[in-house]
């Protein structure tokens, strides 16, 4: 049973720049994943406006019966969100770690164009290692 179903990275204007699914559950085709990404971007922005308290940074966790959606927004507005099984504890740190990988292997890559889809071999390799490690840690608990 995979701990994390799928991972999305969206740029500051709501475009999907990276999508990866783990396992067959919750797999989406390209159009659906693009739609979900822009929808989430808008909902995130609306939630900031709706908040009665000032200084709200948007939805961090969406809980449903069968899945949890964890979201992490970087200071520059790039959002990382993952669909995972309910009740996962360490998702925040995993998303932060993925952000770290993004800054290392995507932003420091001279062949990456900002705001464009991510196609970096090293990012893929390190990401799958991180998710694998996270899965092993889950099993150990």
């Amino acid at each position: 049973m995979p701990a994390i179903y799928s991972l999305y990275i969206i740029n500051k204007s709501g475009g999907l720049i990276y999508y990866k699914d783990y396992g067959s559950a919750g797999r989406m085709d390209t159009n659906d994943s693009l739609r979900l990404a822009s929808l989430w971007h808008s909902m995130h922005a609306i939630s900031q406006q709706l908040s009665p308290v000032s200084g709200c940074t948007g939805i961090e966790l969406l809980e449903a019966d069968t899945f949890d959606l964890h979201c992490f927004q970087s200071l520059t507005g790039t959002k990382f969100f993952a669909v995972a099984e309910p009740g996962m504890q360490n998702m925040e740190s995993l998303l932060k770690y993925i952000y770290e990988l993004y800054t290392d292997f995507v932003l420091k890559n001279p062949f990456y164009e900002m705001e464009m889809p991510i196609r970096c071999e090293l990012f893929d390799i390190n990401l799958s290692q991180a998710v694998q490690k996270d899965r092993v840690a889950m099993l150990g608990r």
Partner: protein
Amino acid sequence: MIGVGKTKQYANILDRPISKGKQEVSLSAFAFLFSELVQYNQTQVDNIAELERRLEDAGYSVGARVLELLCHREKGNRRETRLLGILSFVHSTVWKVLFGKVADSLEKGTEHEDEYMISEKELLVNRFISVPKDMGTFNCGAFVAGIVRGVLDGAGFPAVVTAHFVPVEGQQRPRTTILIKFAEEVLGFGTQSHKSLRKKRVQVADQTLIIPGK
């Protein structure tokens, strides 16, 4: 008694001992700077070979300076005059100062006498770089190849230096090999001592000078 604990003042900047320098700089800062260097050069060229050449030229000036500095700082103003000496100087001293470690291996080419290879499992400049498939065999290690060429050229061992990706069995990522192919005139230096060869050259030069005077 007077001036104890005071740093010695030098009237002339040239009398001052050369400092060891700060040993480390931020890897991130370097990675971003190098990334920008590659991106800038990419806007100036229209093919990959040209980009490789420009990166190598940028490295060449680094190499020439590094040789000068390290000969002074590490070697007491002496410069290696033997082929193997300069190669191990590049492999250990230069690599250690630039990348904080000795290069993984230094080998002699099996097919050609004049070829040497320095291999790195993960070259520092390539740590964060994924070359897209459509760029073929392009390797940003061309910059490091340029540094090596700068050092060798400055030391009097002209060579053609190139960087290549070499796939390793059982490894996801290829390693980078810096291939050094020495110019023809360098080859004799290995067997004959540099000095005697130079003496011979001077003699030849003298003779040619005398002949027109006759």
